């Protein structure tokens, strides 16, 4: 009797597991059968970078990156885009290993990345990084100012361009800065700056403006940008799908820039026109 119950329990668990596995299988294969002729393209993005890629109240993925790519897909009926969310550090590795075909998370260019990945020709947004300090701080206007004070600076995730840029600068200039990885979320970043735990962090002007408004943060972006770059979509290098996809997406982006669709989306999601002219 007792043993029978255990067996029943075990079978229930196996069934549950099978269901769970089948559940996530069908979530992906469902769309595939619907449009067998279309080539499925998996897009890797994040789920926690508002307003670029985030989950809305109903837990559906949306944001600038997502909506732009949906528009792009409308013009490319031969493809079917499927969005998958990742932890930021996992996106580029996923692209490299072939888990996804296109990476979209406001990726800037840097030398190391360019070595490893194929960049689109069309920039999606302007993404110049600036140093951000407390509103009443008038001493720090550059990384060099910060280095003199042996300051602490918060960078991004391990695979973020800002981490790369600051780390590289620091190593070339005597390693006086103390780097801190971004923890948890924006609240912490702002709080750490406010309490003096960090002396500066790195971000783009429009995010700083947004933080001032939504978080009521007493901060300012200072000095010349520490990195000039647009944000691009990334594709796999030495890969046929990647090369073709890049060509197709670039062509549509060009078109969407010319007819003002991208500028419109930028206004809607980012609160201004941040589409690069190039």
């Amino acid at each position, binding site marked *: 009797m007792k043993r029978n119950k255990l067996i029943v329990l075990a079978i229930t668990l196996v069934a549950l597991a099978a269901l769970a596995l089948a559940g996530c299988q069908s979530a992906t294969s469902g769309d595939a059968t619907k449009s067998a002729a279309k080539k499925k393209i998996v897009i890797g993005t994040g789920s926690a970078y508002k307003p670029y890629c985030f989950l809305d109240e109903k837990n559906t993925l949306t944001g600038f990156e997502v909506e732009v790519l949906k528009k792009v897909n409308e013009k490319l009926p031969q493809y079917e885009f499927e969005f998958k969310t990742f932890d930021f*550090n996992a996106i*580029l*590795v996923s692209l*490299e*290993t*072939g888990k996804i075909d296109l990476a979209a998370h406001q990726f800037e260019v840097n030398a*190391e990345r360019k070595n*490893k990945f194929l960049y689109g020709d069309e920039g999606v947004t302007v993404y110049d990084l600036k140093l951000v300090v407390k509103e009443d701080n008038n001493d720090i206007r550059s990384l060099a100012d910060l280095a003199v004070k042996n300051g602490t600076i918060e960078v991004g995730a*391990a*695979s*973020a361009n800002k*981490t*790369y840029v600051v*780390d*590289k600068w620091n190593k070339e200039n005597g390693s006086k800065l103390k*780097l*801190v*990885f*971004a*923890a*948890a979320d924006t*609240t*912490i970043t702002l*709080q*750490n700056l406010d*309490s*003096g*735990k960090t002396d500066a962090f790195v971000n783009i002007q429009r995010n700083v403006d947004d933080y001032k408004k939504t978080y009521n943060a007493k901060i300012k972006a200072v000095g010349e940008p520490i990195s000039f770059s647009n944000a691009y979509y990334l594709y*796999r*290098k*030495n*890969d046929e799908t990647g090369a073709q996809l890049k060509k197709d997406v670039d062509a549509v982006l060009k078109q969407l820039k010319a007819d003002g669709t991208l500028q419109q989306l930028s206004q809607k999601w980012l609160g201004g026109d941040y589409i690069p002219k190039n």
Partner: protein
Amino acid sequence: MGFQFDFSFLLYEIGVGIRFVPVVLLLSVLPLVAGLLLGTAIALVRLLRVPVLAGVLTVMVVFLRGVPLVLQLTILYLAVGLSFDSVAQFFGLGMTSKDISATWIALVGLTVNATVYLSEVMRTALQSVGAGQYEAAYSVGMTTSQVFRRIVLPQALPVAVPLIGNNFIGLIKGSSIASLISVVEVINATLYEASGNYKFLEAYVAVALIYWVLCISVERLTALLENRVGVYGNSGVV
């Protein structure tokens, strides 16, 4: 697919990671020692059924055992950042949250965690000594400290040592969660090195090897200690 596992980078990352082993040891040994002391105190309070205090501690132990470490650390990290300044001001402490680094927060969080689990270990260990033993010891005229030193400890230790060893290993592995609140330990240190070239797999494999060696060493150490304290075990002869 274009993916190549880079063994030379793996070796390089092992070198980087090893330099941060002291941080892992700091984050595990200190909580272990503090947790043993505090945990024993809690175990005694609960075993002796100290009014009120025993109840409060039991609730605390039961609650904290049910909450994942990552949540405990994150909540502590957030709460310190949000409230420490006002609390410090209230108590007139000459500190601000600026002075509390993430490492300190991780240390406190891991210590709380260790205390909770080790209090259970010590409770089990002390309970394993039968009540008759105490009575017998007192009846032959031993003082309380004598009872503990000569009767209770020799019997409780063989029970406790392997469990403490297990918790030490748990703490070593648990310290990895400190990386999520930006403490630079083995994981974050190796990830920094990979931030330019995205060789995260190599970084993580290096981290895994380092942790493995650490855990095996602790296991061996515990086994040795077990043999030492086991002499006073149930085998009857010394």
